[in-house]
């Protein structure tokens, strides 16, 4: 192990999110293998605790991928998901962890290019910020 590899976790909804991943895989383009995808029924299911646990378990950046807001399979699911992600960002900022480590994205099942963009932007974040420093900001 010469260099440290970034750890990226993605929560993908099983409708448009996972379909977007499948299409991205079939698009002959390669993306970084440090991405680990966890399937959820809908991004509305993602709770702050899941994102925080992923960070706790060593992820450098976490993204949530859901349907387009006007075309969500569960109607308002990806809007709820975005609210949750924004909430977590606020929480991270309070504890002194960079909020840009967590991001919400929307894609439809036909937007394969979008997934490659998401992976590269989250990888950039992970590489730029490095591992989360324990303790974060100055406590006490």
């Amino acid at each position: 192990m010469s260099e440290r590899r970034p750890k990226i976790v993605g929560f993908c909804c099983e409708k448009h999110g996972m379909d977007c991943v499948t299409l991205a895989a079939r698009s002959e383009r390669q993306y970084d293998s440090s991405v680990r995808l966890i399937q959820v029924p809908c991004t509305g299911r993602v709770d702050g605790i899941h994102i925080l646990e992923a960070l706790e378990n060593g992820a450098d950046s976490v993204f949530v991928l859901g349907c387009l807001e006007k075309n969500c399979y569960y109607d308002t699911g990806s809007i709820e998901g975005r609210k949750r992600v924004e909430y977590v960002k606020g929480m991270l900022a309070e504890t002194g962890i960079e909020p840009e480590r967590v991001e919400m994205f929307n894609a439809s099942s036909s937007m394969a290019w979008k997934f490659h963009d998401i992976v590269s932007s989250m990888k950039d974040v992970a590489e730029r910020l490095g591992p989360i420093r324990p303790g974060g900001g100055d406590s006490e």
Partner: protein
Amino acid sequence: MKRKIQVVICRVCSQGVPVLDVDKLAKTAAEAPYVGSVVTVDYACQSKTISSIVEDAKTKEADRVLVVPCSKKDVSPSLFQAYVRRGKINEFLIETVDLTNEVILPHREDPTRAQEKAEARLAAAIARLAALEPLEKHEEPMRTKNLVVIGAGVAGLEAAQVAAGHGLHTILIEKTDRTLKAPGVLLSKSRLLRAKGHGGNFELVIEAGEKEETLECAVIVVASGGDWSQGKGSLTRSCKEAMPLFRLKDSIDSGTLPSGPVVIVDTPDPKGSTMKAQDFAWDDALDLAMIAKRASPETDVTLIFQEMRASGLSELTYKEAAQLGIRFIRYDNKSPPTIDEKDSKRLIVKDLAQDEVVSLRFSTLSYASIPANPDNIGIADALRIPISLDGGIRRGSMQRGPVTTPRPGVFVCGSAMFPKPEAVARAEGKAAGILATQFVASGTVEYGGAVAEVTPEKCSACLTCVRTCPYEAPFIGAAGKAEVRTQLCQGCGMCAGICPSKAIDIHNYTDEQLSIETEAYLRGGF
């Protein structure tokens, strides 16, 4: 609870491109906790292989199965059926891992790391599978096989025709007293008042003539048609002569269009955020602008818009219109076009492209027609389906289909969504008829399984879930705690994610199961 997992790895699929070392993968899987047996097979979809692996699961007394097939969507349904029927394995304890699309294809240029990721993926899937619980699905017979079509227009009649052709008993609800040759029962001068129940077993209250009647049906098609809004906005208020596009068309057709410049604005209310022109309105606006320009080429025709949405082939019309000499001015809704206070025949607009204020003289001012059907509000309210800003029935996600609503068992077609040509309305009617037939074909409503469940002790009856659920499944029950109507629950888990008391969990996607999976997945090599 005993937990014994059988892992089935399809050799051909996982090795389609020789990236992964399947034997090593099988060895890692065998070492994972709760794994009873690992089978590597060639062609997991062959019937001979299916019998042997199901037999293996039976002899090893496995109660859950992890299949690693080509891709999630290609896996043969007969494999699952064999496990459920012959292997007596709960259908919710059969999981699949899509290694092809998640690992092999996107990482085939780096086999070492692909192998690492595949092993971590498998370990995470095994950990998740071990944490799952067996679930039951329930069936409820449909009391009737009736189809109710609301609106006997082009789309509605087509839907009824198709469904009746497949043997559905169709009932058409029509608000006028037109006499029609309808397939099935036609209730004229009637309208929908209220609705109860869920897809498969609806109970409608309709007003037929003078009296109220209840009607049971399995599926509903909304084909209430569309109309143009007589919308009042900032523009229509300040200029009384402003007319919607369909009026402009009438006056061009009848030759009563006054000579002088024609100005077409994209909405009657440029200041507001509602009443935005739809894509199809752009086709009309461009067509009419060209008709007016061709009728008298010396007339100035100007189109004022925020966003030109000439989609598809209309792009060519847009180009043609520009070549004809029609002027286009784009504005920003922070500085919307207004009528000149000194001269009521002048429109002042800030051109976004040139960044300067233009004063346009006009003799005819028109605006894009905004669709609306006042009946839609009542129908949407009764059926609990969403309505769009401009008064059309809003359809659900395109993945569910273009004529579906977010509510299962309710379909929508034709101009009820927004005005559209007759041929399109007819095609949509046909689609809705077929989908309605498919919906009632089994004669039973299936529900339950991976749905939400409330822990009453934790519930604080804060109503958050009630407000959040798009399907209105949660409600506050007699005990003063939230309960979930399982028949309506779609298993999206939005309530579980939002519940501040953590009182709701969604089966097979519980907080605990998700953390176990995350933890196991991140433990592996990167």
